[in-house]
């Protein structure tokens, strides 16, 4: 039973992190219909920034709490800046190009960013500093649920609530919802679509950075390539839930996280990634609209 609960929590933890990344895919897709292939790299850059800042601060002897806060903020700020800049460079000029052009551009951006980090830093795996201490009150159940898992779950819930609030109640959130429903209409009623798109990239990238920070402290190491696999998996989760749908991304992520956790726990971990890719292929073939997405009939 303990093993089951352990797997359950590790699945939820995984799922939460996928969700933080998947939201970026889904939001961007909802607004401009682009699979932002470079999103995984944004997350990787978030993790790297956190790593660099945290290590520097810890070398200079800052207290742990300050390190966590500053590294977290730095990760979010830089990832968002990257997201914003990438959109301006690689996607905005292609807004009226054929559908595949921005996708190819996104793939190029992804390869570019991976190699940029590889060349400017290193190709080795780097040990990520322990940012989350073992809480004394978790002692009795530490063999089932680690303190890191707890922090990840709590952070994810807080972030989700905040995101829901932004989308439901703020002006920019309303503009985002309007734009995703009908971009032409949104322009007509005076919404600045460019600003909405930028905001979407900034928010999505910020979420990915939080995901990057959390998973890096969970796994304990990073390298320039972590974005590729995490990106594909989060994308799988977004498609599973129905791309474009925010609750769908969360649901899909949790399902994917739990399935992976139980499959590796009870079956074998050799084929973990094969499993994720197969799931992606199967969903796209059999239910491309996902669990909560709407199937649309192209108007002719």
């Amino acid at each position, binding site marked *: 039973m303990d093993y089951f609960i352990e797997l359950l929590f590790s699945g939820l933890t995984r799922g939460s992190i996928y969700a933080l990344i998947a939201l970026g895919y889904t939001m961007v897709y909802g607004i401009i219909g682009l699979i932002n292939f470079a999103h995984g790299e944004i997350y990787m850059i978030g993790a790297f920034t956190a790593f660099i800042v945290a290590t520097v601060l810890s070398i200079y002897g800052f207290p742990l709490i300050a390190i966590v806060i500053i590294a977290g903020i730095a990760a979010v700020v830089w990832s968002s800046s990257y997201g914003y800049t990438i959109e301006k460079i690689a996607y905005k000029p292609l807004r009226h190009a054929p559908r595949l052009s921005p996708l190819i551009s996104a793939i*190029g951006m992804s390869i570019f960013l991976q190699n940029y980090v590889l060349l*400017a830093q290193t190709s080795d795996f780097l040990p990520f500093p322990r940012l989350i201490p073992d809480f004394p009150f978790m002692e009795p159940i530490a063999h089932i649920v680690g303190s890191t898992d707890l922090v990840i779950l709590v952070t994810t819930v807080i972030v989700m609530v905040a995101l829901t609030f932004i989308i439901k109640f703020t002006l920019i959130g309303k503009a985002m919802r309007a734009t995703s429903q009908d971009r032409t209409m949104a322009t007509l009623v005076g919404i600045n679509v460019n600003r909405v798109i930028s905001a979407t990239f900034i928010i999505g990238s910020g979420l990915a950075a939080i995901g990057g920070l959390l998973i890096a402290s969970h796994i304990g190491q990073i390298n320039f390539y972590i974005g590729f696999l995490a990106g594909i998996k989060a994308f799988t989760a977004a498609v599973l839930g129905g791309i474009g749908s925010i609750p769908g991304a969360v649901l899909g992520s949790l399902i994917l996280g739990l399935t992976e956790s139980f499959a590796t726990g009870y079956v074998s971990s050799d084929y973990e*990634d094969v499993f994720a890719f197969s799931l992606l292929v199967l969903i796209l073939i059999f239910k491309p609209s996902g669990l909560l997405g709407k199937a649309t009939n192209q108007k002719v």
Partner: protein
Amino acid sequence: MGLLKELKKGVLISLWFVFLTFPVMVIKVDPIARTVVWRWANALYMAVGTFFIYFLVQFFLRKKENRKETNDSKEQTLSFIHRILQDRLQRNILIGVVAVVAVFFPQFLSAYQTNVMTTALMYVVLGLGLNIVVGLAGLLDLGFVAFYAVGAYTYALLNLHFGLGFWAVLPIGGLIAATFGILLGFPVLRLRGDYLAIVTLGFGEIIRLILENWGQFSKGPSGISNISRPGFFGIEFSLQSSIIYTYYLMVLLVLVTIFVVNRLQDSRLGRAWIALREDEIACQAMGIDKRKTKLVAFSLGAFWAGIMGVMFAAKTTFVNPASFTFLESAIILSIVVLGGMGSIVGVLFGALILILMPEYLRALSQYRMLAFGAILVCMMVFRPQGLISNIRRTYTFKKKTTSSLCR
């Protein structure tokens, strides 16, 4: 006018990029030794570099705009290479020169150089194969490398277990890859373009991961070695002459591929592919079977990848899953995009530039992948038609005279 404003903007943008790249470019930490290196020079390079790139981009954008305004005549926009190709005499001279160079290349240069050239030629064929799928039919296939892997492992395994030779497996490898293409294409080709791209990417990774994990079948990550080189009616070659033989074989394969792809694109089938790329719905309404037409493009592309897989295994005498990563697909895609989607001459140039340049500019080779990424982005943003935009045959028909074809 506005020069000051432009300068100010340039400075602001470079400052933004200095900020953006600050943590990754400037700080380098060693978490074990617990040391920090501040590489301030990088920030300076970044600032200066961005500043110049910004003005370079502005310059090109302005030039592009001017060109659009001043002349729109077709003659002007024809690229240099097409002007040569259109003139019969110049074209024959060019072909003659290329032929002489191709024939005598191994005589004058080292085995190493010949080997590099053979690799470049393999990418030409891979590019031409992918070009059918992406350039002509408009299907973005990100898992092209899977079919390459299928071909390579077909030869490796048949050679290992049954001792089959290169020539026997060459068509088999192609056909098996094409069969994989059909099997995958059947369910996925009804997907929308961007989903198709992701599914093919997933498929490519699945194949690689299976090869890596299914040790009994594929010998896992350590791969299969001692694969026979191509033979010639039972004659065994020395290593040196085998390299030269493989080179000529590749030249021949390139010629055959160019011939076939050229004929395909100027046919009823080729027109259907291009129409499909332009507008799927209109295409179907004109009576073209979308599924079948896409499937044919997909499996023909796979066929060439399979053939090249066999060639690859025979040339290197060793295969392992690490040769078939997503990056390989990305390289082939870059070749097609850089050259100009749909253009045969473009793919030729694309492959030679992208494969030979990092080979000869050793200093550049570590920036190779960085450049591939940048090329994909820049091409889409500045020159989506590629270096050499595709000029298709124009069908001319004059009443009472037979049709004349001009390229």
